[in-house]
């Protein structure tokens, strides 16, 4: 190809986008600019709900599956200790973008699985609020009439007397597993922001107009 021909080809029409866009007459073509702040708000409350309010339940269900799947997948991999507003505060700022479910997980972690424990400080014994270390269990009930609530004890081993009747504290999430779990919950929060922005500035038609009996040609 000569220089003139190649120059004409490069300036005549812009190259098509990598993903085919719907034509202007298509029912999938974007409509006029609209602003849906309520849809954005409810998307934060429950991922995908904003799209359901906008008449796009399939899209909303897919968003909920993706975002909540990432979040609960993170909890499944890393345990409840993954969402921790005290020990992983910067991560929690991103986790909180997933919505109240992140605050609920953090509340459970702080109030049901962490414990006060006596630790030896530089001058005197201090009470520390922390996750259970490896090999520790949380005891929620007074043991032998003496144990304060809540506290941590060493995890019972084979042959130990059966005196640990309360719930265990969650094991500390560490290593690569903790990194992957933190990342999954953070990705859930970031993907929920994407869904929130899509709901706020949504230009699509309701699915009832696109699919099924009421669909427009």
């Amino acid at each position, binding site marked *: 190809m000569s220089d003139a021909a190649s120059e004409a080809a490069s300036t005549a029409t812009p190259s098509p986008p990598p993903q085919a866009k719907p034509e202007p007459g298509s029912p999938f073509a974007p409509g006029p600019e609209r602003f849906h702040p309520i849809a954005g708000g409810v998307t934060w409350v429950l991922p995908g709900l904003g799209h359901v309010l906008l008449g796009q339940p399939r899209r909303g269900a*897919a968003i909920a599956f993706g975002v909540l799947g990432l979040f609960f997948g993170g909890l499944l991999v890393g345990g409840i200790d993954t969402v921790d507003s005290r020990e992983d505060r910067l991560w929690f700022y991103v986790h909180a973008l997933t919505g109240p479910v992140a605050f609920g997980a953090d509340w459970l972690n702080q109030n049901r699985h962490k414990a006060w424990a006596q630790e030896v400080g530089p001058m005197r014994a201090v009470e520390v609020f922390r996750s259970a270390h490896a090999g520790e269990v949380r005891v929620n009930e007074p043991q032998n009439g003496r144990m304060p609530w809540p506290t941590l004890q060493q995890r019972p081993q084979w042959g130990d007397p059966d005196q640990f009747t309360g719930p265990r504290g969650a094991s500390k999430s560490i290593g*690569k*597993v903790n990194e992957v779990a933190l990342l999954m919950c953070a*990705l*859930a929060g970031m993907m929920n922001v*994407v869904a929130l922005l899509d709901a706020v500035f949504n230009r699509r038609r309701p699915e009832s107009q*696109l699919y099924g009996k009421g669909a427009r040609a």
Partner: protein
Amino acid sequence: MTTPTLAYTLAWRPFIDPMDAHSWWFLLIFPVAFLISVAWKAVRVDDIRQLPRAVGVMTLQVVMAMLGLGLAAYIGLIVVLPILAGLFR
């Protein structure tokens, strides 16, 4: 300690205790890539009926890209760097 209590105490509790995935954590790329693709393509595709195909393609792209990056890092660190170090020795 009785055996049932010990079994309860030592058992893994989903969503509370971390999963013992320290030896196969890298396989988590598959669910992570799949779920990211679902969430991303759910807001990107114009026709929601195209979602399964778009999700499959993007999941494959993400996994292949990670494999490629891993391979490139392996080649760079294990093959190229030792050769360069030998050249300037």
